[in-house]
């Protein structure tokens, strides 16, 4: 009512002013000159122009939007207030060329801006309303076309004007309209996505992802435009204070979009790698309704570690915000990743000879670890070690997995080496059968930083074990512990044998020069046992088993090229020295191996 009154008043004033001028001057041109010379008349004319613009705006509004919703109107007012303030700030920069035309251009800019905002709100509204009429589509499409065309025209105009007449206030308009143009593109893309979604029968799950990327790209373009604008303005005029607020918001939005995209990607990645798809059976057992969207789960759904099932798309959008189960708030990242992710992620980084052999014994003390790590085999720790020791014996590694089983004709070579490795440790510790970990203070890595050092790879020879043995090793708690203890006992027996033989061997070697295999390089003392086990062939090759100190052996071998590294070692501690001696490993002869094997079997039988 009030606006109508103001409009009428302004019309009446204009009529009076024009009539007065015409009455005084009688002719057209003199009247125009009279009006422009008289300040009060001009004021009236300006007010009239403002009213006309507002009325035109209302008309356009009616054509393109119809009745504005309350929220839209509030939003518009809020933004308009800031825009007006910023326009006033812009006036201060360009106070030199302040004239009516300049004001008119800024008014037009504001006017177009508000239409852009409304268009944006309208398109966002598409997602909220169940009733989208044909008129709506028609309006949005025509509005976007008109706004886009106007923006392009003004950008081009500003560009030409800057090129021909040099930098002027047109620079500001050029950038403002360029930013408005990106807004039109953004809104158009959103509109297209919403329309496709509305017309599809099934929910379009990837729409959110597309929207995210649109936001990201448009945000990036806007940020670039603003930065360019500020740089140019600073060089030509002064700091464009009026551009700072929108620039700040643009950068913030861009940052948010960027974060969203990262979080979304992470969520999708987790979704694809960590959680299994829910099976039809599980869906039936649950009540088959996704609690996030309250719809039936016919499309892809995922099961979380806590057994709650959700739509994949719903989970993805939720995980973008929070990494908890919506139902029970279980932190899925903390529960799942420590067991699953590090194994997968750190695998490539495993150094070639990382495993401290004592990591493996430590594993035994902590059988729960295996309960969680399905694949982890108690002997996994030894495996890489052994691969380093004797790459030629890969096919015999199976024995590692179950040293307890009766050694087959081909198996025990690998087996006895392994056993010997642990044997030296058990030998030095005197209580090999009990818990081993606390006895190795110098080798704490596994228990103290359980996830820094990746758990050893599960041996690929696992399949060589029979189904039964595998079950025993992996089985639940008591059974698997028993199976492992059995393994360890067997190992211990074999180790003791190996030590015995080693002593015999060293005694024998002290009297004869034998070319034997040199132990492979390893920093740990466990390797000494390895060396010992290799040298168990001694009793076979040299029947002489004279008891004696091992030290002379080492020194006598010092001249041997394969023992060259050992020669530098202190002969008094030959066990340790042999282990530290670093020289390339030579594969043992097959014959030697066989004999050693036979010998070992005999020893084992004796022990039992």
């Amino acid at each position, binding site marked *: 009512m009030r606006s109508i009154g103001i409009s009428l008043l302004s019309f009446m004033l204009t009529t009076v002013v024009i009539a007065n001028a015409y009455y005084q001057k009688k002719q057209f041109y003199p009247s125009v000159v009279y009006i422009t010379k008289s300040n009060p008349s001009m004021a009236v004319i300006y007010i009239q122009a403002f009213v006309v613009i507002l009325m035109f705006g209302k008309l356009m509004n009616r054509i393109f939007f119809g009745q504005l919703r309350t929220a839209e109107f509030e939003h518009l007012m809020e933004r308009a207030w800031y825009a007006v303030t910023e326009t006033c700030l812009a006036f201060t920069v360009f106070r030199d060329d302040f004239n009516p035309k300049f004001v008119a251009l800024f008014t037009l800019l504001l006017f177009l801006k508000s239409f852009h905002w409304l268009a944006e709100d309208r398109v966002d509204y598409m*997602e*909220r309303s169940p009733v989208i009429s044909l008129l709506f589509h028609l309006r949005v499409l025509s509005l976007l076309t008109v706004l886009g065309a106007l923006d392009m025209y003004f950008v081009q105009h500003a560009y030409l004007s800057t090129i021909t007449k040099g930098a002027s206030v047109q620079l500001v308009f050029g950038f403002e309209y360029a930013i408005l143009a990106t807004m039109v593109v953004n809104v158009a893309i959103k509109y297209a996505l919403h329309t496709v979604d509305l017309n599809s029968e099934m929910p379009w799950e990837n729409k959110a992802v597309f929207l995210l990327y649109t936001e990201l790209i448009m945000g990036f373009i806007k940020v670039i435009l603003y930065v360019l604008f500020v740089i140019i303005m600073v060089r030509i005029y002064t700091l464009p204070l009026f551009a700072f607020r929108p620039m700040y918001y643009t950068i913030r939005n861009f940052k948010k979009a960027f974060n969203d995209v990262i979080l979304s990607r992470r969520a999708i990645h987790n979704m694809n790698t960590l959680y299994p798809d829910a099976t039809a059976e599980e869906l039936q057992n649950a009540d088959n309704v996704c609690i996030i969207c309250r719809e039936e789960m016919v499309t892809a759904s995922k099961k979380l570690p806590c057994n709650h099932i959700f739509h994949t798309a719903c989970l993805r959008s939720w995980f973008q915000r929070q990494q908890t189960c919506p139902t029970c708030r279980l932190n899925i990242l903390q529960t799942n990743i420590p067991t699953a992710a590090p194994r997968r992620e750190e695998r490539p980084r495993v150094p070639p000879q990382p495993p401290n052999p004592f990591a493996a014994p430590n594993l035994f003390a902590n059988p729960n670890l295996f309960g969680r790590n399905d694949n982890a085999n108690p002997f996994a720790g030894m495996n890489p070690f052994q691969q380093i020791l004797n790459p030629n014996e890969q096919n015999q590694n199976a024995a590692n997995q179950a040293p307890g089983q009766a050694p087959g004709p081909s198996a025990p070579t690998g087996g006895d080496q392994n056993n010997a490795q642990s044997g030296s440790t058990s030998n030095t510790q005197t209580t090999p059968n009990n818990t081993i970990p606390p006895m190795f203070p110098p080798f704490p890595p596994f228990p103290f930083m359980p996830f820094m050092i990746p758990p050893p790879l599960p041996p690929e020879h696992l399949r060589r074990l029979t189904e039964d043995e595998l079950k025993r090793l992996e089985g639940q708690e008591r059974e698997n512990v028993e199976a492992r203890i059995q393994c360890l006992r067997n190992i211990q027996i074999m180790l003791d044998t190996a030590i015995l033989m080693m002593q015999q061997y060293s005694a024998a070697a002290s009297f004869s020069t034998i070319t034997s295999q040199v132990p492979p390089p390893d920093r740990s003392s466990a390797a000494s046992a390895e060396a010992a086990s290799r040298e168990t062939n001694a009793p076979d090759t040299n029947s002489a088993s004279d008891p004696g100190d091992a030290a002379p052996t080492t020194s006598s071998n010092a001249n041997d090229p394969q023992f060259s590294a050992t020669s530098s070692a202190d002969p008094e501690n030959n066990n340790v020295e042999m282990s530290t001696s670093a020289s390339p490993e030579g594969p043992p002869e097959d014959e030697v191996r066989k004999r050693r094997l036979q010998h070992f079997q005999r020893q084992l039988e004796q022990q039992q």
Partner: protein
Amino acid sequence: MAGSALRRLMAEYKQLTLNPPEGIIAGPVNEENFFEWEALITGPEGTCFEGGVFPAKLVFPPDYPLSPPKMQFTCEMFHPNIYSDGRVCISILHAPGDDPMGYESSAERWSPVQSVEKILLSVVSMLAEPNDESGANVDAAKMWRENRDEFNKIAQRIVRRTLGIPN
């Protein structure tokens, strides 16, 4: 297909209309916009708010149910957990992460599992048992703790006002 937020709100509206919980009515103000709801809550029996019918407005975010809605009573309210402008301050309406009062555990915060019905039921129980440790309205909290009679008197006056009965 409409947006997922809209579909979920429509599903909730249907559910609330078919099986309305006792003492609660809720639905969109206008069926063209499902993101603004109006709710009527009756004061729980046996409390100082007994007999009152309190109108409230619920505004849902575009990403509902990932973010919680906002709730505001449109009548005058005097309650420790309701701001003087009617906004409701309970933990179920707060997304985990923001904690205006610094006392809520994340277990009672918003999650997509919550629903309009659960919110309104929480509000009913909040009316019955104010949490005076989170003072959205400090005066009310103080009065609730120290001068229960006076609090009850004010509550009764509000109840009468919501029913259109002169004081």
